[in-house]
């Protein structure tokens, strides 16, 4: 099958590649770009483990073809920590609040939460739960994921961490 040339930005870096048109975005990221932090959990667009940020929206990268990302700006979990290694408040929040166990859902969770907080910087618990409803976790029961996102929201807003922990 003939390959198609695509040009896009991934985690701030320009990427040019040749892909078979049917290559799923998630496979492109994982296998061609070696960004294996984005996971595959279901294949049917339900689990959200493959969530990445795509032109300012959260998408499930198992349900897009890489060719659709032509010209797109993509951010994956690997692009979340600062250049100097400082963790994003969400990464910190997930650790502080024990928002992960096996860690398999975590990159997708963080990427979705990242966009959620852009859309709604101070979500209520209910808004977090509906905002995260496209991401499944088999380990945590979500309660600590909610707290992790609240922690990050507070930290981004500059609240004292004491308050966030409550």
């Amino acid at each position, binding site marked *: 099958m003939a390959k198609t040339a695509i040009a896009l930005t991934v985690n701030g870096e320009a990427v040019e590649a040749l892909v078979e048109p049917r290559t799923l975005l998630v496979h492109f990221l994982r296998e061609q770009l070696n960004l294996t932090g984005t996971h595959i959990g279901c294949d*049917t667009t339900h*689990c959200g483990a493959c969530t990445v940020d795509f032109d300012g929206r959260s998408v499930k990268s198992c349900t897009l073809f890489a060719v659709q990302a032509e010209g797109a700006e993509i951010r994956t979990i*690997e692009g979340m920590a600062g250049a100097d290694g400082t963790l994003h408040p*969400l990464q910190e929040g997930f*650790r502080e609040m024990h928002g992960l*166990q096996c*860690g*398999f859902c975590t990159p997708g969770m963080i990427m979705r939460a990242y966009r959620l907080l852009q859309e709604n910087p101070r979500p209520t618990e209910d808004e977090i739960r509906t905002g995260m409803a496209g991401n499944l976790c088999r*380990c*945590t029961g979500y309660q600590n994921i909610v707290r992790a996102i609240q922690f990050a929201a507070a930290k981004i807003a500059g609240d004292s961490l004491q308050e966030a922990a409550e």
Partner: protein
Amino acid sequence: MNEISETREAREARLQGLGCKRKRVEDIRFTQGKGSYVDDLKLPGMLFGDFHRSPYGHARVKSIDTSKAKAVPGVLAVLTAADLKPLKLDWMPTLAGDVQAVLAGDKVLFQGQEIAFVVATDRYIAADAADLIEVEYEELPALVDPFKAMAEGAPILREDIKDKTEGAHGKRKHPNHIFTWEIGDHETTDLAFRDAEVTIKELISYQRVHPCPLETCQSVASFDKIKGELTVWGTFQAPHVVRTVAAILSGIPEHKIHVIAPDIGGGFGNKVGVYPGYVCAIVASIVTGRPVKWVEDRIENLSATAFARDYHMTTEIAATKAGKVTGLRVHVLADHGAFDACADPSKWPAGFFNIVTGSYDFPTAHVTVDGVYTNKAPGGVAYRCSFRVTEAAYCIERAMDILAQKLGLDPAELRMRNFIRREQFPYHSALGWEYDSGDYHTAMQKALDTVGYQALRAEQRAKQEAFRRGETREVMGIGVSFFTEIVGAGPSKNCDILGIAMFDSAEIRIHPTGAVIARMGTKSQGQSHETTYAQIIASEIGIPADDVMVEEGNTDTAPYGLGTYGSRSTPTAAAATAMACRKIKAKAQMIAAHLLEVHHDDVEFDIDRFRVKGMPERFKTMKDIAWTAYNAPPPGLEPGLEAVSYYDPPNMTYPFGAYICVMDIDLDTGVAKVRRFYALDDCGTRINPMIIEGQVHGGLTEAFAIAMGQEIAYDEIGNVKGASFMDFFLPTAVETPKWETDFTVTPSPHHPIGAKGVGESPNVGGVPAFSNAVNDALAFLGATHIQMPHDAWRIWKAAEALGAQG
């Protein structure tokens, strides 16, 4: 506050030892996408394998044509049973003493069964080629209902063993029969029923479900022809067992097999067994001389690897009118699917189902279990529970509610009247276990008081009245569950897998600078071992947890162990950890005494140091001692500071807990909403409360999913219905209730640190709590027992059958 105690506190805090809410070590890599899961692995020249699977539940395979698949550019090999047969690998032994087809030969026995394995240069080509394999079938009648398995004229499934009248667990009554397992006292139990004032009898079914971790099963096999060595990376909860099985199957010497379980994305019992995919990847690597990766997709996972439950339990209780139980009788019909591939300890074909007397003082009991074959996927694994313990807990907790209803007693009160009392421990149950410790009344009372149980019952009565007056269509249920688990398999006197005793191990090495590496025979899949084992070590030998690296999963470096499932890591490997630490400490004491120039009886351990008794200012820290161990060991002592422990537990541990669920059900739609869920757990000594709470949240969420909707269902011709996340119920954050956790602490008397294991309690205790709530809500309309799963339509239908749908 005086100075000295402050320092001690600071010293203790620095250790981050037992009981502290240490943040997880694992999270640093996981939150940055730097975990290393199997599918992340990329090796030069790596190939990809994919299966062609049976569309039929039961059919004869007339012919397999792989020519079109082999013609696809990029395909290197296609394996079928005919290719495996000369290698004697077309069948493999299961952990339950049966055999399982690696690739189907003459017959397929369940939908999704593996028929051919395509090996290609990438997964896209492998998938294309797998589609091009042409199989000619002759469809056979499928056997789906386990109750019909031994009926006259039932289709015979396992032609390979149809004439065998002896199975791995004794006599077989029918070609579709696997075993009968019997325990308890038949006669005294019959007498108890003969003399009973009150009896109940109910068929309590626990539907077929699936552990369904978020990461599916996967592996990479790489055979080095020149060295004759095989390396296998995989989603293995028990890597050492996989190595042993691989050695037995392949004939490759065990020391030339390297099994590595990297980070695992959840297991819950799904990743204990050995699957055809692992075997085919290994064979394919041997055949092609290149590494071969196999990754199942979600539909394959749900329909082919390791279901759980499918237990149909006819349950009877005998009791007095005053509500004292006098006997328990259970017959289980166990649907094992096409092969008996349970991962139970070898001598336990029904696992530890004989914990079914639960938390109650039954004077006598009798249990029989019949395992049968059906045209369904094999498995029967312990899905977030110890072997068949959740089935047992569901059985007894449901039955106690049914008895309470019959007696007109409150279900909490009935439990209180029958609990094993604190002074009865260690308690010998009618079915042969020795419960190590417990304080059930205290736990139950705390739960009832916390939720305001009496007030809830009053509210429920008021709502029932309103319902009867036609003012509301909402009813309220209160589900009470009090479970006793049996975990930590287990003592070599009664537990082995393939003849290997179910000990576990720890090897701890203190480096000269006082940094530590510790390796265990278990394997975390999210249970936070890297964090918690280090806490045990910190408390035991006084080196900060941050200076301890815990490593698991590499069979070359880790000591032999039986892996992680059945909540066994804490009872076994954590105990081994403590024991290894104590060996180190004993040596450290000698070194300290030598350095302090006193007799070793004159020094004592103090948090992170040894000090001279009565002279706290004269001490040597563990760091000093470690250096000395390598630098100038005392005369007569070997240099170095390390120890290994293989811990054979003297008994199982018996965590318990009291759970209460408050539920509102809209009878117009059948939709149930959990208003409140309170979970009190007693898992003995609490190693890390944060992690315990996380485990409880997760386990309750799984229990909620099971009780309220999960099911791997088959239609009458053996098609799996709904093997994807569209139908298989995994709740999102929206459906998941909020959890309240609580605890009491009754340490295990025989465990070195008193811990019992907690990962599975919430599943075991949670399922009956939800189910009892549903049943309790409809009891006033006349319901006695409504089968799970309690999804909306089934609740609606149950209400309809009770005449509550207008």
